[in-house]
């Protein structure tokens, strides 16, 4: 069965500190992994996907198949990064995104 686990419900860091939001998945095949973000009073939006290997708003995420992880990282957190972050897996069938429960990131000055 496919599963996405985000172990931290809430993560609080100081501005300028590094941040890592954890995501682990269970899937036997080759997954497509995404990070979605929801800022206050805004809709859920795509932050990045592993296939793109890109950095968005300073965030990166590397797929580690050995550890079945897709952690989201940023070296220096900003207050505007405060939001709800969801890790999501697409099994390759094309039609279903499996979401984790989300991690609320709070960046304080």
């Amino acid at each position, binding site marked *: 069965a496919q599963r996405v686990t985000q172990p931290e419900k809430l993560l609080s860091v100081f501005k300028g500190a590094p941040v890592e939001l954890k995501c682990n998945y269970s899937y036997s095949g080759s997954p497509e992994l*995404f990070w979605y973000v929801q800022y206050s009073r805004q809709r859920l939006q795509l932050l990045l996907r592993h296939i793109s290997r890109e950095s968005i708003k300073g965030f990166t995420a590397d797929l580690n198949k050995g550890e079945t992880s897709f952690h989201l990282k940023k070296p220096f957190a900003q207050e505007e990064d405060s939001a709800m972050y*969801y890790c999501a897996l697409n099994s390759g069938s094309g039609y*279903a*995104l499996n979401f984790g429960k*989300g991690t609320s990131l709070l960046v304080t000055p």
Partner: protein
Amino acid sequence: DAGVTQSPTHLIKTRGQHVTLRCSPISGHKSVSWYQQVLGQGPQFIFQYYEKEERGRGNFPDRFSARQFPNYSSELNVNALLLGDSALYLCASSLGGQSNQPQHFGDGTRLSIL
């Protein structure tokens, strides 16, 4: 481009009633997916439609149904509403049905069951 639009924004129903939620995808997108998000949880997949055909269904009872129209807009119908159906219902569209294509979400419809 207005993005994915959903209507209504909020809806209050009582147990046993039925409800229809509507979604218009981004122009050019042919795939529409529906998700249910209860408080404190991530979105949970309900349906995906591509080119007006159902491509996938999540673990939801038959009270939930959906369809996609020739203009690629979609409706989600829920019959015999239960208190547990209270949730935010999200619609997402993508260009096609490939797994590596990002899904773009609407603001959702907040459904409350009394």
